């Protein structure tokens, strides 16, 4: 075997499977195969001969033509599948998603603001209670002596 495992046997195997045109061979072996073929033209010709004849036969099979009737039926089936142009307008699902996301964002903002406000009010209330308590203590001391 020579570079990248190429020899006449491997070239023959690849040609038998993929045909006599190296461009149609797996990408992973193409470069190594080309290099081997360039340096071994006689052996390569032998290995590729049958494959090229089979290729020629296969290419004799014409691709079927698409009739206008079939084309029209397939286009009509796109309409039947409800694939209609919606250019310029977001889908209903998208609108619902945007609406839901906006509502959720507003709700989250409200919760955060409420939590901050609540914390602030609680702190204020606590400070008031301490001051009241201090005042009460002062008064009691003064009154009771």
């Amino acid at each position, binding site marked *: 075997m020579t570079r990248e495992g190429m020899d006449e046997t491997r070239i023959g195997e690849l040609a038998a499977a993929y045909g006599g045109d190296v461009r149609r061979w797996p990408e992973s072996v193409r470069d190594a195969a080309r290099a081997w073929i360039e340096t071994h033209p006689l052996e390569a010709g032998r290995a590729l001969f049958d494959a090229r004849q089979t290729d020629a036969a296969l290419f004799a099979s014409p691709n079927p033509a698409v009739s206008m009737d079939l084309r029209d039926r397939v286009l009509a089936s796109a309409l*039947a599948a409800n694939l209609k*142009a919606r250019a310029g307008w977001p889908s209903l699902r998208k609108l619902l998603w945007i609406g839901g996301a906006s509502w959720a964002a507003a709700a989250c903002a409200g919760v955060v603001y409420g939590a901050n406000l609540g914390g602030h009010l609680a702190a204020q209330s606590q400070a008031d209670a301490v001051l009241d308590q201090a005042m009460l203590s002062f008064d009691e001391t003064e009154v009771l002596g």
Partner: protein
Amino acid sequence: MGTVALPWPSRPFARLSARPERDRLASVADPDEELVRRVGQGDPAAIQAMVARKLPRMLALAQRMLGDPAEAEDVAQEALLRAWKQAPRWTPGKAKFDTWLHRVALNLCYDRLRRRREVPTEISPDRPDEGPAPDRGIMTAQLGAQVDRALVALPQRQREAIVLCHYQELTNIEAAGLMSVSIEALESLLSRGRRTLRQTLAHLAPGAEPAVEGARR
């Protein structure tokens, strides 16, 4: 990993959806991605472009798999109908759209081939012989018809391998993935199929004795 939408998971060929080969196709650049996205949005120009791009391919695949023009048209139409349904929810990056479409069309072909086996028919899907004629165009058509007959006469898996690799020009990895076989098994199917074709069509080779049409029947 998400699913590459197989139309009917309970059927025998649905096992194709769980193949590891699919992973190898992941993150492959998909030349159809933008077109599929526009089709999914209902863009009329994209729908027409998709028909122009895929309908001939699906028709050729089905024609060579089934050997029957009418059935091939039905399969191609059904495959594209499924493409319309799939396009709006197509997730790019998981598989190439063309490979997915081949899988759909192949499954439709398998269904029809299985039904044929269950209900034997006496009607041959062969094209009619045009008879001998000196005209070059007719001779070319005859040659094509002989190749098609030889192709249809191949064992199904060998025919499938040749159709996918030679005519549909899928890579060996894509074809092996669609057929749920290893690369080595694919190469074996290709080699055996091509060898049989070469033997069947040997009389067409330059310098060969002209075949008497009908002698093979």
